[in-house]
């Protein structure tokens, strides 16, 4: 099964070496980085926010959501083009197909993280040390994969790769904006605060920032969220996979 997975990961990586991936994984996160930098720099710096430390994890969070969108796209395409059915006629374990998809997505996530952190370093973002960097990347990837699983569950029920991408983008907007990703808690009206606090994006981005700064991290909230999402979406994926 390990070999099967390896072969499929190789195949997934090869087909994702396209211009589309280049735009999705590198160009579009950096466009958002530039855009948010121009818009938020003055507004947040005047409020005493250390802007480079604040924004870099925010853009990483955003890119992780975009990674899930492309997972959905690739799965829906594999399904509509018959690749999934073809794999099933072969004497390989169905689980390998899923594991390969998840492993590929984990690898793909590293690309935007590297690009964003590199640009972050140019504007003054710093990890406090190697363990902080490793923890940061691990948490970001674990978080991304929980959403990739959700996207996979949806995509296994659809065979239109284009519409799945836009359907996934929509729920990401409130999750991203109504969280501490792009603005500190104090900016929001009081009545919204409970929503902001409970949002998994807030828990994760706060932990990412603390990890990067080398400050004491409360890892429990993001890890509980991630574990719960893995469980729920994992079950949904295995059900959808058997039916797809």
């Amino acid at each position, binding site marked *: 099964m390990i070999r099967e997975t390896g072969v499929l990961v190789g195949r997934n990586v090869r087909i994702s070496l396209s211009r589309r991936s280049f*735009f999705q994984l590198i160009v*579009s996160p950096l466009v958002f980085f530039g855009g*948010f930098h121009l*818009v938020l720099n*003055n507004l947040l710096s005047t409020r005493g926010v250390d802007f480079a430390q604040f924004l870099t994890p925010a853009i990483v969070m955003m890119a992780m959501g975009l990674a899930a969108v492309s997972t959905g796209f690739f799965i829906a395409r594999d399904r509509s083009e018959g690749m999934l059915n073809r794999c099933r006629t072969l004497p390989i374990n169905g689980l390998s197909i899923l594991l390969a998809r998840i492993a590929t997505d984990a690898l793909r996530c590293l690309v935007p993280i590297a690009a964003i952190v590199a640009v972050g370093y140019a504007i003054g973002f710093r990890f406090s040390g190697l363990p902080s960097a490793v923890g940061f990347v691990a948490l970001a990837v674990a978080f991304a994969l929980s959403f990739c699983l959700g996207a996979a569950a949806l995509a296994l029920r659809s065979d239109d790769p284009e*519409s799945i991408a*836009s359907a996934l983008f929509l729920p990401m907007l*409130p999750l991203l904006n109504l969280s501490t990703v792009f603005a500190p808690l104090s900016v*929001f*009206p009081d009545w919204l605060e409970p929503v902001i606090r409970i949002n998994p994006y807030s828990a994760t981005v706060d932990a990412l920032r603390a990890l990067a700064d080398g400050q004491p991290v409360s890892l429990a909230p993001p890890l509980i969220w991630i574990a719960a999402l893995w469980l729920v979406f994992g079950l949904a994926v295995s059900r959808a996979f058997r039916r797809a």
Partner: protein
Amino acid sequence: MTEMALLTGRSIKRFSRTPPLIIISFAFPVVLMFTILPVYGGLIGDDYIQRFAPLIALSTATFGMPPSALGLFTDFRSGIFTRLRTMPLSAGSTITGRLAGDVLRIVAVAAVTILVAHIPGFRFTNGVLPVLGFFAVLAVFGAMCTAVSLLIALTAPDADTVQGSLGAPTTLAFFLSSGFIPVEAYPGWIQPVVQANPLSTASNALIGLASGGPVLVPVLQTLAWAVGLGGLCGLLAVRAYRKQSA
């Protein structure tokens, strides 16, 4: 004229028979508005909706460009235009029909968005005539965006190029617009770009028409963009279309 109306009708029917497309095009601006409002309302001030609602209405045109160009691209490949070419239709009316359909869709989505924007407090405070002007500016802006989409759909070698060449510029134009945050809040070196951005000039025109303020200058600037960029792309699109049929 009938040709044009028929083709406009086709383009609208195609849209109205794609339910996911309808939901997404109407839901996207509304969700975007309600989720951005608390963040930037908090950062900028109480009257933020008067500034932001016009930009959201305009962004239905700009964010609609990649999917609309992609739809056109598939249309061109699928042979419907080849079929139209076998009929005694002029290239101009085929293109204009498509353009009119897209502009109607953009104005419809923008109207719904503006209606919904009344919930968080957006108001027209300037009387009836400026409201008409408001939607006229939206239509002109929408026509410009559609002309650009048309040209890209007609000249792009593949679907990924369509998406790739429109995605980043439309996103950046949204960020660099004075409808998003005031010009003075941007770093000094980028302010000229923000001021020249068609999304800024059109936002300023809509803000002026809806809630009072300078109207003439931003309207003229927006018209200049529409005639310059939109006209150029429209002409090139007709030419590219004729060339393909030759």
